């Protein structure tokens, strides 16, 4: 029996072009480009569609004498004119990473939901949760190192007084939406981390990842942590968990009881997620999962998450981002990243190829319908034989006599190559 097609694969989803400004994704690059021209690069004054934000800016200043300050219809943190975007070109690497992570998360979420509904085992999962164990293979020293690094970074940002930047809550776009803040604020870091972190797992089995980014996202308000802290004993040998980690666990719940306004705490929590998340998906926990992961997720919340995420990335760029990415880079499994990068590279290369053809079109040549810059159309017409004037002294007396030969002869000869007239 043939295998049933269950919608697009992760790779297909990852390859879809998407819009930097509003995070919509499209079937192909052409549609993306026309979307950008229509939604983001369209002049509100005259409706002209430009190719880039820079082009629109120049158009606005030259044609309407106005200054373009932000890209229309963009997510709040993506409306900057500094980034030159055309289709998929020019999107900053970190944003691409974040987007991919989001796609992965969404994909896995959908997968998890489906599994919850159908009761099917996750693809590639054998008996006894063998593949799920794989993630644990991370060595103790690696874990320690990562934790230490993360702590150091946090400490650094805190002492530097710039915690606001590292902490997405500080990216105040969500101000006024208090309930959302913990969610939106927190996810950025989860995303930022998981963007690189869980990918190694992905190769083994997409499933473990499924719940992990989602889980923390929607649980902060309640008390999901104690149970989750019990996961490791349930499914795993305690070995991968360094002595240090349990301490962090115990610390986190308390941190969470602090009012959400405290922006420093969420990062701490998220720092401890990765080890835990690895343990989450073990088969014994399977029945519980839907209750946690599936119900709260809807498109709007996802959107909120991503907006918050993007805000964090954008805001961080000058300071925190480099540290974050470098430390993360060291941690992640090289192969997965390479594969990912390769995919991204081919995607952008393809995009480039397509977009290269476009500008050529725009530089089309102009053809003048009437190109004689010296002799007017009327003069040319006057030289046609049928319009030639032959004075014949009729009723009207001309003041001066007209030598007909010069009018007709010379004029007709020099510029008219039409034999029909001769």
């Amino acid at each position, binding site marked *: 029996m043939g295998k049933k097609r269950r919608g697009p694969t992760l790779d297909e989803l990852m390859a879809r072009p998407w819009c930097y400004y509003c995070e919509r994704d499209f079937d192909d690059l052409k549609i993306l480009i026309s979307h950008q021209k229509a939604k983001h690069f369209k002049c509100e004054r005259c409706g002209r569609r430009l190719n880039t934000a820079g082009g629109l800016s120049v158009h606005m200043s030259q044609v309407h004498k106005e200054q373009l300050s932000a890209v229309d219809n963009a997510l709040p943190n993506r409306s900057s004119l500094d980034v030159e975007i055309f289709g998929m070109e020019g999107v900053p690497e970190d944003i691409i990473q974040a987007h991919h992570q989001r796609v992965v998360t969404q994909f896995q979420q959908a997968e998890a939901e489906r599994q919850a509904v159908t009761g099917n085992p996750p693809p590639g999962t054998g008996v006894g949760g063998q593949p799920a164990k794989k993630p644990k293979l991370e060595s103790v020293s690696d874990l320690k190192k990562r934790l230490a690094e993360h702590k150091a970074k946090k400490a650094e940002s805190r002492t530097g007084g710039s915690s606001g930047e590292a902490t997405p809550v500080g990216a105040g776009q969500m101000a006024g939406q208090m309930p959302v803040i913990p969610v939106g604020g927190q996810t950025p870091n989860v995303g930022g981390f998981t963007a690189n972190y869980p990918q190694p797992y992905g190769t083994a089995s997409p499933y473990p990842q499924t719940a992990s980014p989602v889980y923390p996202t929607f649980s902060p308000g309640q008390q999901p942590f104690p149970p989750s802290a019990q996961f490791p004993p349930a499914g795993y040998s305690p070995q991968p968990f360094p002595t240090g980690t349990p301490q962090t666990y115990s610390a986190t719940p308390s941190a969470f009881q602090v009012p959400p306004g405290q922006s420093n705490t969420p990062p701490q929590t998220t720092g401890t997620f990765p080890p835990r998340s690895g343990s989450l998906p073990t088969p014994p926990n399977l029945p519980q999962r839907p209750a946690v992961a599936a119900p709260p997720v809807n498109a709007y919340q996802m959107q909120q998450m991503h907006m918050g995420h993007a805000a964090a990335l954008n805001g961080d760029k000058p300071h925190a981002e480099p540290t974050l990415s470098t430390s993360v880079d060291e941690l992640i499994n090289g192969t997965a990243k390479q594969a990912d990068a390769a995919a991204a590279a081919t995607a952008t290369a393809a995009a480039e190829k397509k977009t290269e053809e476009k500008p050529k079109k725009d530089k089309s*040549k*102009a053809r003048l*319908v*009437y190109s004689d810059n*010296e002799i*007017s159309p009327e003069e040319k017409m006057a030289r046609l034989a049928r*319009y030639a*004037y032959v004075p014949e002294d009729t009723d*009207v007396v001309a003041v001066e006599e007209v030598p007909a030969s010069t009018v007709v002869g010379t004029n007709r000869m020099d510029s008219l190559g039409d034999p029909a007239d001769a």
Partner: protein
Amino acid sequence: MASNQFSVASPPTDAISALKFSPDADSTRIVVSSWDKNVYLYDLRDENGAVGEGKLLQKFEHRAPVLDVCFGATEDEIYTAGLDWDVKKIDVASSTQTVLSSHEAGVRSVVFSKEHNLVISASWDSTLHVHQTNDPATAPAVIPLPSKPFSMSLTATKLVVAMASRALHIYDLKALAMLTAQSEGTGPNKIEIEPWQRRESSLKFMTRSVACMPDDAGYASSSIEGRVAVEWFDPSAESQARKYAFKCHRQTADDVDVVYPVNALAFHPVHGTFASGGGDGVVALWDGIAKRRIRQYQKYPSSVAAVDFSGNGKYLAIAISPGFEDGNDDVVEGTVKIFVRELGETEAKGKGAK
């Protein structure tokens, strides 16, 4: 075609060179000059006074194709300029033609200034002839031009002459009138008069048409390269900084931008907006102050040769004929037409700056 547009009955049989509405506010008379050597006088009103496709009142045959035509002091007075080198006055009531003067080449355009009672003609012999209508006995003043004139337009006080080599002269009509009045006797009466302003066209290509604003503030000019420039008379730096040009009458076909000449320009007498007619058969209305296009009409089957607004601004007449630029010399029957659009109250009104 839209219901508010009708085509005028019995159009000329060959390409149209010029079309003018009577300047009288409530008149619906149109005079048209054609390459078929005739000048046509139409009235859009029928016997009952209803404005419709109108009727041909009279036809005046000339010895050669007529290149330009204009109304004089009254609707019964028409001046024509033609390839027979003559500038003529036609008295409609008696159907008589009088030669005012003869140039040494075809006469491209003729204008009448009712403020100064002057008929000014421009010929390819690179001269202007200035005739005084209230004193027909005096010989016209001959003003040499640096290049061949292509188009002429006037306001109450100024005369704008657009010439080859992108030259453009602006004359003060008062000075012209005085100089012409001073000249005595018969025979060619050459006067050297310095134009009030000498300008170079803002457009890189040959000037096709020029039209003055009804408020005497400036003028618009168009070129063979699908472009229109709007400029102001006032020589001060601020006014000159306001001048601009824009592209129009173009079509993109197979990656090639096909650029049509802008054959005709006409200002709306009330709103001060203007219409442009191009070789692409398109007529567009523009707000020269707000720098916006007000509207563009559906493409006509052939090149737009001339456009003009009626004296009260309620009608827009559009003359189409296959242009020479199309490369087809032969005029096919039925391609020469005169359309008249009845304009809505605000149809030609500028939207105002946003």
